[in-house]
């Protein structure tokens, strides 16, 4: 049972890495908290559901569409709000409030348009039957969702470390002011990072029905707490740390569900508070911020 919980935990952990990665990328590059991240994830899920029910598109196909559309939507959103936000006195705090407003708008529009009901997709879309890993039987839908997450994480890694724009992105992460002084087009670099972040949320949304069971318009808040827990555990502003945070989160969640299932919902909340209080710089972080 323990092995089973750990194997399932790693599989879920890969997915939760994807959930947190975009939020962390935006925080790392812009030092703002996108509190609408969970709502963009929800929109990704709604898109997958819509593309399947209306056009019969398999999620593996719709994921490509979602990436392109979300990436393109991210650019104007960035230019509309973020540069202005970053000029304010306390942009980190104000970002939280502003994106909270955006989150409310998204939730409201989705509920008005589609109603508040739960939406799900048949797991068979990602493959029929279980798969056995280390003696643990897991649904193929889980495995393929985790694999898709791993691919997305890998692509972000390649972007950051193997492309020119990615290198510039990392420079902005180190110091926005110095990057600006050296002539980097910080706004463009950030806008692309913002677009990528939304695309990652969208991808996580496409696979959300298979991992989380269903999609509802008001799921954003809970997802945000989870995503924040993942990235705080794995060090804020460090995209690679997200992988560690995601796996730790996934494994603890599965252990909770195996041994203490009725209290499992407490986990993200307690984990988040505990890490913030005990090690606010995250597991990989150096002590830089004043807690």
């Amino acid at each position, binding site marked *: 049972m323990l092995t089973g919980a750990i194997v399932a935990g790693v599989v879920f952990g890969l997915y939760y890495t994807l959930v947190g990665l975009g939020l962390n990328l935006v925080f790392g590059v812009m030092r703002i908290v996108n509190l609408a991240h969970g709502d963009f994830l929800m929109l990704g899920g709604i898109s997958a559901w819509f593309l399947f029910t209306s056009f019969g598109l398999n999620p593996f196909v719709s994921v490509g569409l979602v990436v392109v559309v979300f990436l393109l939507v991210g650019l104007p959103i960035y230019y509309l709000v973020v540069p202005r936000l970053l000029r304010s006195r306390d942009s980190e705090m104000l970002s939280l409030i502003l994106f909270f407003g955006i989150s409310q708008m998204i939730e*409201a529009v989705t509920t008005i348009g589609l109603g508040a009901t739960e939406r799900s997709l048949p797991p068979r879309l990602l493959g029929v039957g279980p798969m056995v890993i280390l003696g643990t039987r897991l649904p193929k839908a889980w495995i393929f969702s985790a694999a898709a997450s791993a691919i997305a994480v890998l692509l972000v890694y390649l972007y950051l470390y193997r492309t020119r724009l990615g290198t510039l992105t990392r420079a902005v992460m180190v110091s926005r002011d110095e990057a600006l002084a050296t002539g980097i087009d910080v706004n463009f670099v950030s806008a692309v990072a913002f677009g990528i972040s939304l695309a990652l949320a969208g991808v996580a949304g496409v696979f959300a029905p298979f991992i989380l069971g269903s999609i509802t318009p008001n799921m954003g808040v809970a997802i945000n707490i989870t995503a924040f827990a993942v990235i705080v555990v794995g060090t804020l502003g460090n995209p690679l740390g997200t992988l560690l945070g995601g796996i730790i989160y996934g494994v603890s969640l599965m252990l909770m569900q195996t041994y203490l299932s009725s209290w499992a919902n407490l986990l993200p909340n307690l984990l988040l508070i505990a890490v913030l209080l005990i090690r606010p710089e995250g597991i990989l972080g150096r002590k830089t911020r004043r807690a």
Partner: protein
Amino acid sequence: MHKRNRIILDAGIATAVVALMGIMRGVYSNELMLFNFIMFLTLSQGLNIIYGFTGYLPFGYVGFYGAGAYGFSLVVMHLHVPAMVGMVAAGAAALVLGVILLPLLRLSGAYFAIASMAAAQAVYEIVANPDLESITKGPYGVSLSDVFAPATSYYVALAILAGTLLLVVWLRNSRFGMSLQAIRDDSVSAAMAGVSVVRGRTIAWLLSALIAGLVGGVFAWHISVFYPDTAFDLSVSIFSTVFLLFGGATTLSGPLLGVFILYGIYNIIGIAVPQYFQFTYGALIVLLVLFLPNGLVSLLTNRGIRVP
């Protein structure tokens, strides 16, 4: 303006609001709506004490409200005590939660806001857990028909509003309130001005928690049947925050204006399809942060006019 005149003006506004809400009960028949107004007038000022005066914005402010509602309900259900004893328990429950969460004050800005939200969610998960049905009734909600007293509870709510407004008037005109604002602006400079930063923040945090707890308690009393989803509904935090930010924190009149205008609009257009209102206030938040981060009153304060 002379300092004494400022205090008189502040106190006059506070008295007028309390008198208005008292008179309205005899004039207007929808008591529940008036009661909700009193709740949000009080909650947004309670939030004002912690956010306006110290800069900490607890997204999980509803946690204290829920703790108060359940503090009231648990002693009334299990110990069959009078409602006023339940109110003491409501305040105590919120204070205890406030003390437990004191370490959160070590966090700054966004971390604090999100950690407090996680804390409120955690309390909800505990209260609503089916395993605790024998104590909290779990997700099935509580019923307190024994103490149901809509008139008394209305006036108790009004008294809590009056006390809260007086507290804010005092903070705005006292040395302690000025020290709190100094801490908010820069805690290191404040320490070097001789201000005890930890003590100041702790007092503001616990006062703010106490107010939400008392409001939660009187809510439980007035409504008498409710579910954990209602007592820990994140919209309680959201509404209070939006009203406060919309009007302008640190002032007395800002949050009052925020509640009267926005909650007024909500009651006209929002009840039937709450999502229209949700969309509107979401958009309002975005516009406020971008164009008027210090609220409506900053239209005047930016021109050097002091706003009560």
